[in-house]
C-alpha cells in the first residue's frame, strides 16, 4: 500500500522548494494558477485568494495565527532513538532525518504548544507535511503523548491538526506502534473529561487516519483535504476502475458521515473557540483578532514526574 507516494503531490513539493528561495516572492496556486504575492498569501494563511485552495501551512505559521497575538509556548517532546532499525534504503535514515530537520528547522513532524485561543486556554498539536511528508514516526507519537499529558495536567482541551502521508517507513514497526501509542494519548484526554478536536488537513492518510486522526470528539476538515486510509491510486489498482470525482476529499467524507464539519482555514479559529467553549461550559467568547494574553501570572509549575513533558522555558513569540 503506497501510502506516502500517492499523496506527495509534486505540486506541493514544488511549493515547498520554492518557499526555500527567499528571492522568489511569488507563488503560483497549484489549483487555479493565480500568481500570489508571498505576503498576501501568508496573510491569507496560505489559502489562494482567488480560488480558496488551501495550501500546506507549517505548524509555526498555523500556531501564529491560531493563538491570541501569535503567542504560544512550545511543549517539550521526549526525543526518540534516532535510528532504531538502522534503516537504509537509497539513503541512510539519519541522513534523511537531518536533511528534513535542516530544511524545516524543526526536530520532527509534530509541534505541540500551549497557549490561549480566543482567550480559551488550549494545548494544540500540528503536523508538518513538509517534514518527511508529516509521516508518523516515534517523534509524532511522543509529541501527541506529551501534548495529551500536558492537557490533562492543565485541564485544557486538546486540538490536533493532522497532515501526513502515513507511517514513517524508516522506523518500520515502531512507526506502526504509534497507532496504539497515540490512541492511548487520546484515551488519557477522554478519561480526564477533556475535549479532543481533530482538524484534518490535506492530506491525512494511512495509519494516521486509522488512529488519532479519526478519534476526535469533533472531527473538522479543511476544504478539499484528502482524507483516507488507502490512497486513491492503490484503490484504483485494486478495483481496476476509475474513482468518482472528489473521492476521499473532505466534502465526500462529510457526505458519507465521517466528519462533523468542513471549515475554511480562515474561519477555523472562531469555530474551534465556539465549540470548545460550549464543550467546556464557558461563556461565549469575544471573536476576532485578540492581542496577546498578559504574560501568565502562574509561571507553569514544574511537572511532578520526570517523564512528564516540560514547557519550553521561553515563548516563541510570533507577530
Amino acid at each position, binding site marked *: 500500500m503506497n501510502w506516502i507516494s500517492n499523496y506527495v503531490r509534486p505540486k506541493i513539493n514544488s511549493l515547498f522548494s520554492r518557499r526555500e528561495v527567499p528571492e522568489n516572492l511569488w507563488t503560483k496556486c497549484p489549483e487555479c494558477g493565480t500568481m500570489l504575492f508571498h505576503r498576501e498569501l501568508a496573510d491569507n494563511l496560505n489559502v489562494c485568494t482567488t480560488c480558496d485552495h488551501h495550501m500546506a501551512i507549517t505548524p509555526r505559521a498555523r500556531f501564529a495565527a491560531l493563538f491570541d497575538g501569535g503567542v504560544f509556548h512550545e511543549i517539550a517532546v521526549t526525543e526518540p532513538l534516532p535510528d532504531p532499525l538502522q534503516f537504509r534504503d537509497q539513503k541512510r535514515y539519519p541522513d534523511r532525518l537531518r536533511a528534513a530537520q535542516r530544511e524545516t528547522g524543526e526536530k520532527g513532524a509534530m509541534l505541540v504548544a500551549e497557549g490561549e485561543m480566543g482567550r480559551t486556554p488550549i494545548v494544540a498539536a500540528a503536523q508538518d507535511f513538509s517534514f518527511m511528508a508529516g509521516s508518523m514516526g516515534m517523534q509524532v507519537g511522543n509529541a501527541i503523548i506529551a501534548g495529551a499529558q500536558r492537557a490533562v495536567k492543565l485541564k485544557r482541551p486538546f486540538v490536533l491538526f493532522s497532515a501526513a502521508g502515513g507511517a514513517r517507513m524508516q522506523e*518500520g*514497526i515502531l512507526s506502526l506502534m504509534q497507532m*496504539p501509542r497515540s490512541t492511548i494519548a487520546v484515551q488519557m484526554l477522554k478519561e480526564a473529561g477533556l475535549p479532543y478536536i481533530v482538524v484534518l488537513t490535506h492530506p491525512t492518510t494511512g*495509519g494516521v487516519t486509522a488512529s488519532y486522526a479519526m478519534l476526535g470528539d469533533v472531527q473538522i476538515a479543511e476544504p478539499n483535504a484528502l482524507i483516507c*486510509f488507502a490512497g486513491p491510486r492503490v484503490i484504483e489498482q485494486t478495483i481496476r476502475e476509475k474513482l468518482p470525482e472528489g473521492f476521499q476529499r473532505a466534502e465526500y467524507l462529510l457526505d458519507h*458521515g465521517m466528519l462533523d464539519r468542513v471549515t475554511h482555514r480562515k474561519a477555523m479559529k472562531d469555530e474551534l473557540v465556539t465549540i470548545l467553549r460550549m464543550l467546556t461550559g464557558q461563556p461565549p467568547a469575544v471573536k476576532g483578532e485578540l492581542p496577546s494574553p498578559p504574560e501568565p501570572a502562574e509561571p507553569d509549575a514544574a511537572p511532578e514526574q520526570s517523564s512528564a513533558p516540560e514547557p519550553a522555558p521561553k515563548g516563541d513569540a510570533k507577530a
Partner: protein
Amino acid sequence: MNYLEFEKPLAEIEGKAEELRAMARTNDGMDVEKEAAALDKKAAALLSEIYKGLTPWQKCQVARHPERPHCRDYIEALFTEFTPLAGDRNFADDHAVMGGLARFDDMPVVVIGHEKGNDTKSRIERNFGMARPEGYRKAIRLMDLAHRFGLPVVTLVDTPGAYPGKGAEERGQSEAIARSTAKCLEIGVPLVSVVIGEGGSGGAVAFATANKVLMLEHSIYSVISPEGCASILWKDAEKMREAAEALRLTAQDLLKLGVIDQVIAEPKGGAQRDPQAAIAAVGKAIGGVLKDLKGKKPEKLVKDRRQKYLDMGSKGLAA
C-alpha cells in the same frame, strides 16, 4: 507440496525419492528403499539448512505460504464449542474476520481472527483475509462482549492488510481500525494475540494491540509490505528483498525491539510442513500466557497493556 522458489533444490531431491518409490511400486522385486532413504536423509538435512538461515524476504514467502495453517484451522483444533457470531449490526458480516465464543481448555473465551481461505472459492469469500470496516466493527462488538462477561480474548492475526476498496473507504475503514485498536486498549480482560502468518500494518494492529503478542517463528509483522516499501523508497517494487531486510519485520527482530513478547518455534521446514505440530505449539503458548494473566484485575490488565505500548520504542537494535 507447494514448493517456494528457494525450496527448489529440495523439491528436486524429494521428487527423486518419490520417483524411485513409484518405480519400485510398479516393478515387483525392485528394492530402492536404501537409495530412497538416503535421499530422504539428504532432503531433511537440506531442509534444516534452508530454514536455519531464512532471509527476511524468504520468511515473507513462508508467512504467506498457501498451505500454512490458517485461523480456521487453529480454531478448529485448539478450541471447543466454537460458536461463530456474525455481523457488525450496521451493514454486513465480513467473512475476512472470524470470531465468536469458544472454549480454550474448557475456559470460555472470545476468539477473533483474520481468515484467508484455502482454495479459490474460499479465498474470494474471505477476501484473502483483507477485512473491511465491518470486520473491525464485528471485532469491536465481540471485544465488548468479552469485556462485559469477563472472557479473555484471543486474536489470531493473518492479513496482508485492511482492504483498500471504494466501499471500505466510504464506510470508514480508518475509523473502524482506529476504534478497534482503541477497543483493544480498553477492555478489562486478558488479551492475547498471535501472529500466525502475515501481520499486515493497521489491519493487524487493530487486533494485535494486546497484553502479550506472540509470533510464529516464520511469521512477519510490518508497517508496510516489502513490495510496497520497495516501490516507494526504492522506486522499484523488485527491491522487495532489500526492503524486507530493512523493515525488520521478522519475529526475531521484533522480539529484540520489544514489540512482541514471545516467538513460537515452528516445526522443521515451517508450519506448512506439519500444520498439526504448529497448531499444537501455538495452543501451548496461548495456554501459558492465559495462565499468567489469569486472576489479574481488569484495571491492572488495561494499565499494563497501555504501559507496554507507552514504553515501546526505547529499545533499538544493537548494531
